[in-house]
């Protein structure tokens, strides 16, 4: 009999993407600012937190609080289990090979500092070595390397960008030499929204046996990240930009590289034996987690990942793309408004300037209407320099934003125009 049984993998039913219901999950969105309903469009700086993240953190402190990894009492084991479960959730979410590759840190910034410090201490670099970054890096992916370079005399080489805010790929290839020790680039730019061709970057760098660090602080919330598919050597991000709490972030690193790196900080929880003559260190990931970690932060991040995973990431991406397209089209109707960063492949980040009006003035006026955007250089001064602006205004959209909110932004900006015109 040719009665073939085809095994269909059990599909997890995903929650239907309904923005009004999603909004109801975020208590802060119900509040008013300056007498107006809050329109929160500063998501690239930090996202709001769903009730479940808040509840999980309160639950931890109410019922589970104890120090982890050391006690054998009931609460300590419970807390350890919760914290390590969060690590497992992160591992699954970004598809790392094992939990050993997931180091909890304070945020993306600390993750990069950890790598820079450990590389420096481990003697990975010698004078004249080079690290490749892009013109659109956040200061967090510039300054740690500069601090390192003061110690080791290494140089930063910068991949230039075009007027759309895209890297010029051919120039990247030209920068690679036998002096190149690391390619450290932003996955998605916080100031421009540009999504960089990270697959190609990794492929080309690996062709020359150069490891790649991806700064995923922005990218993590917009797209499903698969570190094995990306094949990057490091991926870093912050929990608070992923609907999780502040003060917790993730350094993903390939196990064999992390194993070869010396510890970042010394202290409790990262050792195997300590005596005054010397100490031996614990295995991954604990080797890099000295001291009592941000336990509740890890648990909150785990809850945020669970929250997001209710949805199909395709739905999230589609929603955000729609908002970006709608806002891009709408805002361009404002005379004198110029969008900074017009890459073909772009996340829901919209940076702009309005002729003869300082971003500070834009931000201040629309704040009185309850609209939160970011103004300034977004910790990307070299990017601002390239576009020859001191600062921009930036609206960035998340899972809970709506077209009506874009309309409010539009109306607010028209008001700004009127006041300063």
């Amino acid at each position: 009999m040719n009665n073939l049984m085809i095994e269909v993998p059990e599909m997890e039913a995903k929650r239907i993407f309904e923005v009004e219901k999603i909004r109801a999950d975020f208590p802060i969105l119900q509040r008013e600012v300056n007498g107006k309903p809050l329109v929160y469009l500063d998501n690239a700086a930090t996202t709001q937190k769903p009730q479940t993240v808040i509840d999980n953190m309160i639950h931890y402190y109410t019922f589970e609080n104890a120090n982890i990894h050391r006690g054998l009492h009931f609460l300590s084991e419970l807390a350890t289990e919760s914290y390590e479960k969060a690590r497992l959730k992160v591992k699954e979410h970004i598809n790392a090979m094992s939990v050993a590759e997931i180091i909890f840190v304070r945020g993306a910034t600390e993750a990069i500092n950890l790598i820079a410090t450990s590389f420096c201490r481990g003697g990975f670099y010698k004078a004249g070595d080079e690290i490749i970054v892009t013109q659109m890096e956040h200061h967090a992916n510039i300054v740690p390397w500069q601090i390192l370079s003061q110690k080791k005399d290494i140089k930063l080489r910068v991949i230039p960008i075009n007027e759309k805010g895209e890297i010029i790929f051919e120039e990247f290839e030209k920068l690679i030499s036998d002096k190149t020790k690391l390619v450290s680039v932003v996955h998605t730019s916080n100031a421009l929204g540009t999504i960089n061709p990270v697959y190609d970057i990794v492929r080309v760098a690996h062709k020359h046996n150069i490891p790649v660090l991806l700064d995923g602080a922005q990218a993590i919330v917009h797209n499903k990240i698969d570190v094995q598919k990306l094949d990057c050597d490091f991926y870093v991000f912050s929990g608070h930009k992923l609907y999780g709490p502040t003060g917790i972030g993730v350094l993903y690193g390939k196990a064999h590289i992390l194993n070869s790196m010396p510890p970042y900080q010394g202290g409790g929880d990262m050792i195997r034996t300590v005596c005054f003559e010397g100490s031996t260190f614990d295995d991954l990931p604990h080797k890099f987690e000295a001291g009592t970690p941000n336990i509740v932060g890890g648990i909150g991040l785990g809850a945020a990942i669970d929250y997001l995973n209710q949805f199909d990431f395709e739905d999230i991406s589609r929603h955000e793309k729609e908002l970006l397209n709608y806002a891009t089209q709408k805002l361009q109707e404002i005379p004198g408004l110029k969008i900074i960063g017009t890459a073909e492949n772009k996340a829901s980040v919209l940076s702009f300037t309005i002729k003869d009006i300082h971003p500070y003035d834009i931000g201040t006026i629309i704040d009185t209407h309850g609209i939160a955007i970011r103004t300034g250089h977004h910790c990307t001064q070299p990017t601002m320099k390239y576009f020859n602006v001191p600062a921009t205004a930036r609206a960035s959209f998340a899972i809970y934003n709506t077209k009506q909110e874009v309309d409010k932004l539009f109306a607010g900006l028209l008001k700004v125009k009127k006041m300063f015109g």
Partner: protein
Amino acid sequence: MTIFEKQEMIVKQFENCADWDDRYAKLIQMGRNLPPFPEELRIDKNKLDGCQSQVWLTASIKEGNVIFKADSDAAIVKGLIALLLEVYSNQPPEEILKIPPEFIKKIGIDNHLSPTRKNGLGAMLKQIQMFAFAFKAMLKK
């Protein structure tokens, strides 16, 4: 007019403002009425550190009074500068040091003065007092 009287006068001017838009519109207008800042003074030495907008400030002494000149590239900050200059410029240093900028609070725009706001305005107020302090010491000699 003393610094105190000037402050009271400004507070009165803002009392009639119906809402934030009104208040800011007034502030912007005051900034526009500032005499133009001399271009030769627009140099890094006179620039105050501010994250969001640029602020330039200079001081000189004339007949025992401190004369401030200042400017910003943001209109609202320039309006705030106009307020500060209206109150503190052309006053004796000891008076400047004596009287805090209470009127800013009364107008309801003191959020701009918070040191965490990084708009250079908190820095400007500090600098105004530093100049006054320096001139006071100088006049004593």
